[in-house]
């Protein structure tokens, strides 16, 4: 199973019936594929709506996701302006947001919006989402392409938000962050705690209930 699928399958287990969810671009958009049959969630999009669906048939005017790509509308969808969109996001009306990360640190800090001197795309809606969503899940590959850990004692890149990450899901491990404590709660099948430590530059506790990620 590819790293991305492992991550998406595991993140899907954090969703519950009726949840309002905002998914970042890329990997997070794969998550809904792995929801249990019959579970209904509502996808929220920064550009102003609740009830995104996959595109079926011809694109409809104005029905686009936050990446500007044509999408569909769930029955019962609702459209609104940007002020309302972020009232929902900042006001705790989004149950979960799943975003990619460049770095996460022990304090639950996330850096995912710029690399000084290299990539300055802007934060878009990410700072508001990470600040305001009820639960922030970072879904990312455990290390960079160069093999450098992304989970650090201290983020070195500019932060997206401070102390807001509740969970980090990688292809190797799942960490929960509560009360400022970084805890390894699950590992990928065949991956040992030592393997995780070797590729993680953050202190973390190991849960008493540590188990393998269920990829059922």
């Amino acid at each position, binding site marked *: 199973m590819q790293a991305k699928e492992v991550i998406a399958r595991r993140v899907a287990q954090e969703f519950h019936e009726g949840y309002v969810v905002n998914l970042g671009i890329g990997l997070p958009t794969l998550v809904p594929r792995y929801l249990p049959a019959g579970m209904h969630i509502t996808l929220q999009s920064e550009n102003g709506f609740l009830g995104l669906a996959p595109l079926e048939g011809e694109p409809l005017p104005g029905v686009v996701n936050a990446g500007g790509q044509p999408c569909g509308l769930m029955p019962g*969808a609702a459209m609104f302006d940007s002020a309302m969109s972020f009232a929902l996001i900042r006001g705790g009306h989004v149950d979960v947001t799943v975003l990619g990360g460049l770095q996460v640190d022990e304090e639950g800090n996330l850096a995912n919006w710029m690399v000084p001197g290299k990539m300055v795309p802007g934060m878009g809606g990410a700072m508001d989402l990470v*600040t305001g969503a009820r639960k922030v899940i970072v879904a990312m590959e455990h290390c960079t392409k160069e093999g450098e850990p992304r989970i650090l004692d201290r983020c070195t890149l500019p932060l997206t938000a401070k102390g807001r990450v509740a969970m980090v899901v990688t292809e190797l491990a799942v960490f929960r962050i509560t009360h400022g404590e970084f805890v390894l709660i699950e590992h990928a099948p065949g991956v040992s705690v030592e393997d995780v430590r070797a590729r993680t530059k953050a202190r973390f506790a190991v849960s008493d209930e540590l188990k393998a990620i269920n990829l059922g």
Partner: protein
Amino acid sequence: MALDKQVDWSDVGPLFRDGISVMFGGFMGVGTPDGLVSVLRERGTKNLTLIGNDTAAPETGVGPLISDGHVSKVVVSHIGTNPVTGKKMIAGELDVDLVPQGTLAERIRCGGAGLGGVLTPTGVGTVVEEGKAKMVVDGKTFLVELPLRADVAILKAKRADRAGNLVYERAARNFNPIMALAADLVIAEVDEIVEIGEIDPDHVMTPAALVDKIVLTRRL
């Protein structure tokens, strides 16, 4: 989105407890859910804090709740149309917190939008500024007004779909949409319930994600 949020009237009563804060939609009773107000009365709730535009008249809107002694505090912009409110205030039976109407709207919106407050020019140089922080921006003085939230919001809409998307009618909209953002439990009384998908997404005024329960208006 497939959750059916319609409940029966008998399910509504247990949602209310003594001492809760209740935001109510409406302006002079127009846009106030009369059925939900009746449930608050019938249930005999006590020590309610009501947050809304005004206390309407003794027999309209939330007026009966005040007349019958269910309320210990109101946070409103206006009480002049309900003499009972004024009498109870003077008698020390009711705490009245008067807030300028636009400030009330912004404070509720802040409470629902995750904002810590707004800077408004309204009330500067009046009794409204007492006890509040001020900030000067570009040479102009503003009051820092803080968020308001409630335990429960009771709303009135013309139409809902089963998921809870709401459409209001004319000036009955008023405070309802912002209150839908600002309470832990949001209950809407609606004149009509339609199937999911029957309301054009562009016409939804309060998205279903904000609404916990819908109940069909009782025809008396």
